[in-house]
């Protein structure tokens, strides 16, 4: 097929009439209107010319040899059903039937002879106006589609391709529109924990996804800097409150899984229940929404906090959006919570929750188009424990230059912070320290170990020192919850007490050394007893407590408790990686 494109403003008209005389008359009038005109003397030839020239306007006689005007019109409209090219019948058949047949055949109008040149030109102008409008809309629609596709690509590329641990976590996302209002994020914390977010913005489509980029940036950046999950949620909430219009908000579930603590932290603001299943598909925990969606209130409601539960490595955390619960079929039934729980159980037993569940939903909906975005995140609690720091840690006894540098007395810089009373409940010093180090010494992988050391030492000084909580509480599941409730209570009422944090940084020839000391106002403890208990616990692999100190012991070069356990000094040394 040859297509002669009409690039310039000159419009092409095709006149199909078996009378050469008529063709000439119409051609003259059309040329006066600025058209370039082609003519054909029967329907079949008309169709061929149409294909060849792709005109902007067709004038068609009805009674013609070889192929009449109706048949030719049907053929033309069949070739390009969505074409912008108007087709007008020119006839002397002045009957209702002729008019009806013309429109049925796909014509856009009819002109009955005889007509004056003025009437003819007016008719052409009016029909061209409609056609121009049509092509404008078409163009806008195409541009919008193109923008939407580009934005979609950006969204999935920029936001979700950066998710962590997708070899273990399964994520299902079925959007109702091109754009999903649902967002799924998984990010690794500096201490090896993993933060997960399932969010559902109001509505669907482009409008509902404008909050996704700031949300993912905040969630990612704060997680990587080591902020606690509740701090992140707070920040996300106030950011969305400032950013989004009143009727646009985010329903979301946040989860943090800590493999070395064997616990999960959850927060559900406006999504259906989140679940923790055991490996038989039994429901161990269920978390209902207990906070309005994010972005509605300027600050989180008072007393908002995370739910903390102990987990086994065989457990799975499963998050869903309301698109699953509210998936409907043609009988007006909804998929519902019960069906979900049954299918999830089957899926876990079959070791493929995502596909078993999605097949089940598809069968239930039986082809009814999806009204809402469907999202699922299935996270195993196993496999997140890393061989932390082992490769980064230096063996200082085998390295003379490091050993020599070890003797250095004056640090390159010092950092000190004393948190007293209420400020202990309000401030998490670890991200501040990490920021400081990153600013002065630049980013580096070895900071992950330092982050863990700092976090564990600070939590220990706060929980067991200042707050005087006994870690033996954490030995049972009930005690575990009790422990965190008690912790929260004591933090709220904290008037006195302090933690003094001191950092000394020494640069070494091929690396560096940080000496961390923490002094707390607590009663202290028998540190020798702690290590004894810990090594015993290691063999049982069951104790929920005391893991922190053991981890710090592994990561640091030396770890020493003094002043009856109220002062701790950890030394962390690393070597720059050789290229």
């Amino acid at each position: 097929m040859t297509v002669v494109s009409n690039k310039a403003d000159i419009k092409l008209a095709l006149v199909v009439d078996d009378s050469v005389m008529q063709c000439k008359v119409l051609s003259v009038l059309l040329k006066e209107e600025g058209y370039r005109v082609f003519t054909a003397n029967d329907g079949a030839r008309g169709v061929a010319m149409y294909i060849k020239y792709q005109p902007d306007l067709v004038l068609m006689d009805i009674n013609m040899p070889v192929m009449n005007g109706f048949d030719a019109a049907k053929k033309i409209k069949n070739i390009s059903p969505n074409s912008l090219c108007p087709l007008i019948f020119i006839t002397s058949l002045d009957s209702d039937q002729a008019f009806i047949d013309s429109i049925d055949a796909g014509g856009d109008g009819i002109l009955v002879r005889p007509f004056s040149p003025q009437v003819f030109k007016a008719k052409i102008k009016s029909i061209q106006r409609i056609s121009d409008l049509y092509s404008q809309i078409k163009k806008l629609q195409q541009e919008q589609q193109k923008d939407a596709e580009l934005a979609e690509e950006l969204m999935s590329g920029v936001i979700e391709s950066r998710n962590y641990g997708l070899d273990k976590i399964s994520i299902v996302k079925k959007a109702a529109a091109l754009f999903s209002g649902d967002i799924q994020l998984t990010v690794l914390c500096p201490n090896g924990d993993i933060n997960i977010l399932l969010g559902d913005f109001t509505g669907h489509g482009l409008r509902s996804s404008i909050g996704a980029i700031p949300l993912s940036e905040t969630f990612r950046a704060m997680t990587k800097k080591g902020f606690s999950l509740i701090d992140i949620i707070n920040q996300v909430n106030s950011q969305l409150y400032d950013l989004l219009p009143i009727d646009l908000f985010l329903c979301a579930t946040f989860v943090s899984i800590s493999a070395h603590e064997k616990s999960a932290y959850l927060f559900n603001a406006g999504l259906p229940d989140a679940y923790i299943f055991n490996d038989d598909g039994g429901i161990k925990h269920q978390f209902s929404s207990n906070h309005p969606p994010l972005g509605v209130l300027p600050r989180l409601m008072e007393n908002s906090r995370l739910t903390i539960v102990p987990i086994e490595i065989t457990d799975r955390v499963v998050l869903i959006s309301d698109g699953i619960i509210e998936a409907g079929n043609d009988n007006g039934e909804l998929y519902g919570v019960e069906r979900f729980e049954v299918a999830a159980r089957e899926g876990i037993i079959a070791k493929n929750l995502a596909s078993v569940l999605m097949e089940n939903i598809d069968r239930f909906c039986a082809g009814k188009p999806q009204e809402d975005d469907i999202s699922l995140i299935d996270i195993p609690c196993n496999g997140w424990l890393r061989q932390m720091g082992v490769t980064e840690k230096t063996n200082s006894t085998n390295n003379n230059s490091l050993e020599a540098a070890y003797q250095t007395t004056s640090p390159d810089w010092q950092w000190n912070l004393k948190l007293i009373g209420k400020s202990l409940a309000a401030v998490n010093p670890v991200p501040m320290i990490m920021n400081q180090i990153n600013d002065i010494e630049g980013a580096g992988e070895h900071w992950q170990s330092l982050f863990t050391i700092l976090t564990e030492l600070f939590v220990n000084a706060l929980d067991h020192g200042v707050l005087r909580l006994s870690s033996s509480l954490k030995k049972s599941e009930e005690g575990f919850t009790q422990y965190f409730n008690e912790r929260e209570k004591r933090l709220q009422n904290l008037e006195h007490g302090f933690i003094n944090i001191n950092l000394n940084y020494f640069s070494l020839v091929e690396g560096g050394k940080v000496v961390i000391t923490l002094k707390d106002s607590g009663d202290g403890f028998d540190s020798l007893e702690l290590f004894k208990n810990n090594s015993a616990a290691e063999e049982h692999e069951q104790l929920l407590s005391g893991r922190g100190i053991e981890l710090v012991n592994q990561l640091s070069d030396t770890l020493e408790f003094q002043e009856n356990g109220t002062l701790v000094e950890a030394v962390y040394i690393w070597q720059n990686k050789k290229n």
Partner: protein
Amino acid sequence: MAVKTYISDDNKHLSIKVDERFDFSQHQHFRDAYNKFTEKGTLFTLDLSNTEYMDSSALGMILLLKDHAESIGGKIVINKPSDAVNKILEIAQFHRLMTIES
């Protein structure tokens, strides 16, 4: 019309009743129902007893109404939500943002 309104004689109480489906398609009707009422301290009652389906954009519309009510020193009360709607309000924890009367 899918959104009906009733005004009390003293002009201080506007009752808005939404039909079976409360979703984005009601957006304009819903806004028109309350936008003109700017009498100080107006009580807006949202009757959801007939509503069986409500989506998240409806929750957004309720927040818009709440904002409007509060901007003129008024109040919003949700009245008689059906079970299905109540579940949605509960998940969104709207009882912490406004009064819901059963």
